[in-house]
């Protein structure tokens, strides 16, 4: 691979990283922030792969494998956390979590809060494959049977 080719990969990696960073800093939806963070990781991973290929050894590839593994674990934990946070406040807006500030600081008010999504009336039960999921009320009646 020539240096010119390498540059292209690096630009892609940098763009991915920058987009992820900007997304992380500006979006307030916690899931989006999480995705942005993942994007930054992928930007780095692209870099590593490119360098590995450029230098002709496998060091970078190994690191990328690590990144993928870490990202998988991170996804599991982060999504679980997001779920717990959501259950507390019924919103994904990260700016409602400001309690860890200094005691005499005022909370920062952003322009408008994210509207809580329409609260789903009911979560549907898992169904046997291929069957039409029944509504919850119906299930209750069915379960008695």
């Amino acid at each position: 691979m020539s240096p010119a080719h390498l540059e292209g990969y690096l630009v892609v990696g940098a763009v991915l990283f920058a987009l992820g960073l900007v997304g992380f800093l500006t979006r307030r939806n916690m899931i989006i922030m999480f995705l942005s963070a993942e994007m930054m990781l992928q930007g780095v991973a692209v870099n590593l792969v490119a360098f590995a290929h450029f230098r002709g050894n496998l060091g970078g590839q190994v690191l990328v494998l690590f990144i993928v593994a870490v990202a998988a674990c991170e996804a599991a934990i982060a999504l679980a956390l997001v779920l717990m946070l959501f259950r507390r406040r019924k919103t994904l807006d990260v700016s409602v979590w400001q309690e860890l500030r200094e005691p005499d600081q005022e909370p920062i008010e952003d322009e408008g809060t994210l509207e809580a999504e329409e609260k789903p009336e009911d979560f549907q039960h898992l169904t046997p494959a291929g069957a039409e999921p029944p509504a919850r009320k119906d299930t209750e009646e069915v379960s008695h049977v």
Partner: protein
Amino acid sequence: MFSPEMCLWMIPFLPLLGSVIIVTLGRRMFPDRCHVPCIAGAIGACVCAVVVFVGVISETTPLRFGREIAWIQVGNFSANFSLRADGLTAVMLVMVTFIGSLIAIYSAGYMEVDESYPRFFAAVSAFLFFMTGLVLANNFVLLYACWEGVGLCSYLLIGFWYEKPSAAAAARKAFLVTRLGDIGLFIGILILWHNFGHSLEYDDIFVNVKAQYDAGVLDHNLLYWACICLFIGAAGKSAQFPLHVWLPDAMEGPSPVSALIHAATMVTAGVYLVARCTPLFGLAPDAQLLVACTGGFTALLAALIAVTQTDLKRVLAYSTLSQLGYMFLALGSGVVVGEHKLAGLAVTAAIFHLFTHAFFKALLFLAAGSVMHAMHDVIDMTKFGGLKKVLPITHWTFLCGAAALAGIPLLSGFWSKDEILATTYEAWHVSGGAASGIYCLLFFTALFTAGLTAFYTARAYFMTFHGDEKLPPEAGEHPHDATPIMAWPLMILAVGAVGVGIVLGPTHLFESVLEKKWITAQFAHLASPHSTNLLLMVTSSVVACIGVGIAYWLYVADPSAAASVASRMASIYDLSRSKFYFDEIYELAVVWPMNAFAFICRVVDQYVLDGLVDLFGQVPAVFGYLVRPVQNGLVQFYALLMALGLAGFLLSVLLR
């Protein structure tokens, strides 16, 4: 096991063990039996003391222990845990442990109603440990440590009933006033260490001083100041003018404490110290003169105050002051003029008086305690009277002690006081110039004081036990006499107070022990033989009898006479009654300026120093206030800062 050398360290160790047992186990496991370890320790120490005494008499050299056990070693300064026993120490040990045992037994009966029973016996045991250590010490550092230890125990025991404000105040006063003297002692020790051979062992210092004296290179001025400093320490502990004010107040403690610590043993530590340092004082005649004057003046002053006090224990306290003054007078009279070397006579007289005084004064205080016990803590002699029939045992034992103190012929006080008078008389006749005049004055002061002593002792006796029977309402209908556990120590001490003088005095047993086992070894060059002065004996007996007679006339034969005499000498009477206003003078001259100074210090501390500290404290606070907004709890803000920080770092790496 019972070799004298072993007993040497067991004497302080046994009471210490008793104290530790009481503090660790006794308080929880047998709080009602806490007197047992204390008494056992005291009696064990007493047995060991007797073994040591016999050992000292039979050996030719002093007993020593632990010369090699290093304690402190800094540069060329070293101090060992070394103990020694010569004639002086042996006498003191026997006296301290014997009286201590009796008083511990008495206390078991006296303190029975008190809830802090274990604390009392722990402190008494600790006191015996320190006191025996003090007399056993072979160097000044160990002596000083024990010296402070007895001061501490004295503080703890004066303030034993610390809920009582007057007791707490008395304890503080005692501690602070003696502390003042201790500073003097400490400076004296430093002078000795620095100038006389960089050693603190008694023998080394004494030998060095004598060598310098013989070689004619002794700095007399320096020795004089060393002696004065030592004497200041002694005066503080032994309550001599002007540091005497703490002892009368110390009577706030329980009566056995007054008997043991503030009459028989601890207060004699000063006398012991000066006697121990006779080889130094003998070479500093000016210091001796000061000691004699202080002693004589204190004896007279205290006797004058004692004459009008109505608190029985205070009369005894002032008489203790007075008798200690006598001892110092004797020590100060040990002058050496040409062929006449009185140091041996002087210390023998002082220590003999110390010995007999311990018996009769401990007895008097214990008897006073017994009166107090029966009268339910009333001790004002005007509130009771005629207790002869009510408290027969207390009456007879008190009479023995009082007669001994008054110097009635053939009782113990007579023999020892007579020796002191004889010493002063000799000093008057052998010294020349102004010193002769001063000793002459001191002799007559002492003689007059002997009369006063007889008078106030007899007065206290007559007011308490004679006249119409009068009981304070607190005592109830049937006051009880001393219980057996209290009566036995009283009777043993009474026998001692009556007999110890005639056994040891005219037979010269006491003198020969001190002479052979201490004086000849330590300062033979300051001592020469002496003879008994019969004329003096007769004079002092007559004076004592006159004193008792006047008291009898005033308080028994013609009870109204006392008041009329008092009103005729109203100004002197009031002066004596109010203790010559010493407390008030000190309050004005020392306490008040100190309080003012303390107030100024407090203001400076509160407003200047605290202000400065607060100002410096504000610096981080302001800084924190500036950067605090950074911590706003917003995740994305933190992320932004991290990104910016990383960017800045990368930029700096790139642009370098």
